Every structure is written in C-alpha cells, then in structure tokens.
C-alpha cells in the first residue's frame, strides 16, 4: 500500500519547521548549519514526493541540485565558522554582531 501524498507533505512541513526553529533559536553556529540542512532536506523530501506523484523526474533532478548546493554551502559555512572560531574562540552567532547599524 502506498502512503497518501499528504503524509509526505506534512512530514516535510514538520521537518522544515523544526529546521527553521533550530536556526532561529539555537546560538551555536554549527547547530544552526544543521538546522539549515534539515530545512533543505525537508524541501528535498517534498520535491521527491511530488516527483513521484507526477510520474516524472523533474523533482528528483531539483533535489539532486539542492544536495550539491547544500554540500557546497556547508563547506563555505564551516570554513567561515572555523575562521571565526580561530579569532574569537566562540561559535555563538550572537557574539558576532559586528555588522550592527
């Protein structure tokens, strides 16, 4: 038996909300990056589910691109965090408000 499409979408929404909350509420930059990953994967899940629903591969191709972009983003994000940690001994995003005003 196959699950109805609604289940996939609800799961994706829950995952996306969890990711968004992680980004908004946690201070640790690494955890926030994980929140971003969670949001991206929620989107991937929705895309793959819709791909299946429509019977073509467009959604899967999109998901594939997102995975690539997410990998690249993590590389850059992590390297930024590492360099900030080197200078400030902290990974808390609330310590980094130098761009204020």
């Amino acid at each position, binding site marked *: 038996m196959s699950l109805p499409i609604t289940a996939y979408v609800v799961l994706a929404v829950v995952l996306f909300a969890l990711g968004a909350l992680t980004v*908004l*509420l946690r201070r640790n930059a690494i955890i926030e990056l994980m929140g971003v990953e969670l949001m991206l994967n929620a989107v991937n899940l929705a895309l793959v589910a819709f791909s299946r629903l429509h019977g073509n591969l467009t959604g899967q191709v999109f998901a594939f691109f997102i995975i690539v972009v997410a990998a690249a983003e993590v590389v850059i994000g992590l390297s930024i965090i590492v360099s900030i940690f080197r200078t400030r001994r902290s990974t808390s995003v609330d310590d980094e*408000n130098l761009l204020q005003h």
Partner: protein
Amino acid sequence: MTSTSLALAAPTAHAAALPATGAASLAWLLIAVPACSAALLLLLGRRSDRWGHWLGLAAAVVSAGLGLAILVQVLGLPADERVLQLDLWQWFSVGSLDVTVGLRLDPLSLTFVTLVTFVGALIHLYSVAYMEHDRDRRRFFAYLNLFVAAMLTLVLGSSYIVLFVGWEGVGLASYLLIGFWNTADADAPQREQAKSRENATAAKKAFVMNRVGDLGLLLAMMAMVYQAGSVAFDDVLGMAADGAIPTAWLTATGFFLLLAACGKSAQFPLQAWLGDAMAGPTPVSALIHAATMVTAGVYLMVRSGAIFQGAPAAQLAVAVVGALTLLLGAVIGAAKDDMKKVLAASTMSQIGYMMLGAGLGPAGYAFAIFHLLTHGFFKAQLFLGAGSVMHAMSDQVDIRRFGALRTAMPITWITMGIGWLAILGIPPFSGFWSKDKIIETAFIGEGLAPWLLGGVALIGAGLTAFYMSRLFFMIFHGQARWTTAADIEGEVHPHESGWLMTAPLVILSVFSVALGGLLTIGDAFVTWLEPVTGHAEHGHPVLPVHVIMAATLAVVVIGALIAWAMYVRRPVETVVQPGNVLVEAARHDMYQDAVNEAIAMRPGQGLVLAATATDRYVVDGAVETLAVGTAGLGRLVRLTQSGYLRTYAAYTLVGTLIALVAVLAGRL
C-alpha cells in the same frame, strides 16, 4: 512752459557725423595712453615707485597735446562739418541691436577733452609735489590716469553704452581715490585707524550713491532700446528730434537721465556724498570737482538735449533740481568750517547753476557748458590753492584756525584771490561771463517759472559771494588764529609751496582771468557749440538785461561786504559757536544723510531683515524639517539592524510567510 517758448528756432537738428581723418583718427589714443599708463603702473607695482609719477604725468600731457591737436583740426573745419565720428569696432550684436564702439568728436566732446586733459595734466603736475611724501604716490598716479581715461571715454563715446563704460570708470576711479588713504596698518595709532575707516566709508558712500544714479542711466538705456532700438547718439537723438518717439517715453527717459545726472553730479537728493568725498587727497577733489566726474551729469543733460526738448516736464524737472541744489549747496557752503567742504558745497551749488542752465532748453545748453568750462578752471584753482594752504598748515582744514596767511604765502593768496573773484562773477573774471548768462536765461519765459528760477539763481549768486568771501577772508585776512604748540594739532609754520605746486596755480589763474571774456567775444563759445546744441533764438527776459546784470552784481557785492563785515572787521571765534536752526541744519548738510537714512536705508534694511528671516525660518525651516524627518525615519529603521544573524533569519522567514500568505490569499 519755459522751454517750448524758447525753442523758436528749429529744434536741435542732430548734425550727421563725418568720418574722422587726420589727428582726429588718432582720438582713441587720448583714452589709450592714460589707460595703458594706469595699467602699467598698477602691474609694475613698487618697481615703478621712483619714476611712476613722471609716467603718469607724461601720459596726461600726451593726451592733452593730442586733444589740442584735434581741437585745432576741428576748429579749422567749417562749422557744419565739425561733427566727426570714429568707429572703432563692433562690441556686440543682439538680434537687431548692433553696438559699435565709436568715438564722437564734436564741439561738445572736444570742449570736455580740452578741459579734462589740460586741467588734468596741471593737477598731475601739482600732485607730483603734493604727494611727494606719500609712499603710494605711484598708485595715486595710476588712479589719476585711470580717472582721466574713464572721463575721456565718457565724453568721447558715440553711444550711451560707451558713455556708460566711462561713467562706471569714473565711478570706480573716484571710489579708489576718495578712499585712497585707507591703508593704516593694524599697529598704527587708533586715530589713524579710525581715519582710515572713515575714508573707506566715504569712498563707499560715494560709490553706493553713484550706483543709484547708474540705475537711472541703465533704465534710460533700456527705454531707448525699447523705443529706438539703439543706444547710439545719432539714432536715439535723431529719432527724438524727429518726434519718432512718443512724448511719454521721452519724458520717462528724461527723468531716468536726470536721476543718473543727480547721482554723478551730486544734485538734490543725491548730493550727500560730495562733502564726504573730501576724504581723498586734495588734487583728487580738484579733479573730481573741476574737470571730471561731477561735470558728467551736466554733459549727459546737454548731450541728451533732443530728448529733453521732446519732454518739457523732464526738462523743467532738470531746472528745478538745479535751482534747488544751487540754493542748498550755497547754504551748506555758508555754514561749513572745513575749507574743503566749503569748496565741495560750492561745487554742488555751481553744478546746480549748470543743471539749471541745462534745464532751460537750447538757450541754456551753451551757457551751462560755458559755465562748466570756466568753473572747471577756477574751481581746480581754488582746490589746488586749498591744497597749497593745507600743505602750509600741516594738513589742517579748519578755517577758524587760519587767518592772515596772505603774507606767509603770497602766490597762493593772489591766485586764490583770482579764483575767488572768478567764482563771485566780478567782471572781467571768467565766472562773470558764464554765470551771469545763466541767471539771465533763467529769467526768460512765461508765467511764474522765470521769476522763481531767476530769483533763486540771483539769490544763489549773493550766497555764493558770501560763503566764498567768508572762506577767502578767513583763510588769508584778519587775525592769525593758527594752532600753537598748546593745541592738539601742534604748532604750524606757514610757508609758500614749491614751484611744482604754484606753477599750476599761476597757469590756472591766467585762464580764470581771461577765459570767460575771450570766449564771449562775438559769442564765440556759443557759436562753437551750435553743431551740438543747435541754434537757439534768445527770448526776452522778464526784466531788462542790464537790470538783471546790475542786480546780480549788487547782490554779489552785498554778499561779499557782509562776509567782510562779519569775518574781517569782527574777530573770528576759533571754536564753533552754536548757531540758529538754519546754520545747524547747514552744518549737518541739511540733514541729508538722516533723510536718506530714513527714506532709503531703513526700509532697505527692513527689507533685508525680512528677507533674511524668511530665508532662515521659512526656506531653511522647510528644508531642515525635511532633513530632520528623514533622519528620524532613518533612526527608526536603524533599530532593525541589530547585527544578529538569527534576527535577520527571522525577518527572512516572516517576510517569506507574508509573501506566501499574500500569494495564497490572491489565489483563493
């Protein structure tokens, strides 16, 4: 009206000009030589200190020589060919208006050229000695040259706009010269610094009051461009004489020109600057009063004769202004104790005679210019004599502290005495021939006007005799009232001036004696001016001519006798005594400064104050409110820029949600 009844003959036919040849074709050098000399002296600066005054003198003498050559050439021509035109270059052209720079050599301008260059050269010569101890003598000569060049431009220009260039030029030169002694250093004594400031103020006053007059000339030129489409004398005056310009416009133009003349010639109500202009060195006063600047107004009136003949109201106004000023000037002159200010008031008064003459129509033009010419010589002489007295009396000017100078400085005494007799109008001295004619002409006409104008002219002659005799007697006769070592001014040692100063005095004396009589023989001067002023039949005065002449001589003698009784027979007080209301008013220039301040300066200042307030509170207020509002908005927006990553992420999220909701709401 006086003027219309006078113009029995054809109105001033404006003679067509012939191209200039011979010496006249070099007329531009008259202006160029002193102008170049002035430029050279100013550019070379201190390097020319040792010989600069000689260059200045040479430039004036060259101009005088060339002017004389041109005069001789023109005198050799038949009377109806004595108007020469020398076109130099086209200045600019706007639409149909072509403005050509050209010179006009006719009897009127040549009379002025002769006066300006000849008297000017003598004043230059005199200044070499007078300014000997001044460290800025070279600069002084540069300005004198500039003055002469500007005045020659004024009288030689063939159009109102070239005249205007010279008009502004003499204004500038007089500003520079009146304020010449304004160079006290910051470490100079307080008194010198105050004097410096005072001189600068006098220069500014002359400049500003002249600007009021300039406004009149500019308005007149605008009216000419509007009505005649040209500012050249030939076009404008020709059209005015032909009746091609409506009377209303001629009247307006005439009043504008009168305003211009009032500013330049220190006529009522713009005469207040002339007394203060005495702040400049004495040769400057001689040059301004005798040969150049203040005579420019009379020149303008006579030159524009055709306009005034078409506008009887404006012409009458000229006569009235002249009569008023001659009376005012004479009253002021009778009350002043400052030797130079008496002479300044006297100039005002004498120019008033000339304006009166110019306001009497064609019959008066020639006499106005004739009086201007003779006055130029004897007033220069009087001023240079006054300079010589100042030289002898450690630069003092208070005639109450003079007296009995005739033995100490005999040459100055005799030459000034000749100038005194000349300005009094005692025959056969030159003033008699010119002033008497103006008084006579003032009595011509119908109705009340001749009695009023003639009466004022007659009283003016008596007052002139009084104040000039007062001046002369208080300087040279009576008891010596010289300052001693006990006075603040210090002790004086009167002595005769050197030959460089007495020579011009003697030369001018010769002219003061003979000029008037010689030029009257066979109406020589009047005939000479006819190509410009036109031939005017003389009307008959309301009184017989010999009665007027006798009355004039009588009031002159009475005036002089009163002065003799008051200032020679009786001892003169060395301090100013309180006088009656009229005397006090005259001592304060008839409160002219206060009047000007009340009617012109205060409202002007009020206007400026209002404009400043509007600018500050309305214009600046609006702009500043906008700026403050923008800044406040910016401050509000700035609050959102916390720099916290998570806050920005939340904004993004909220924004996305709002966008999403909006899209969905649109769908449903």
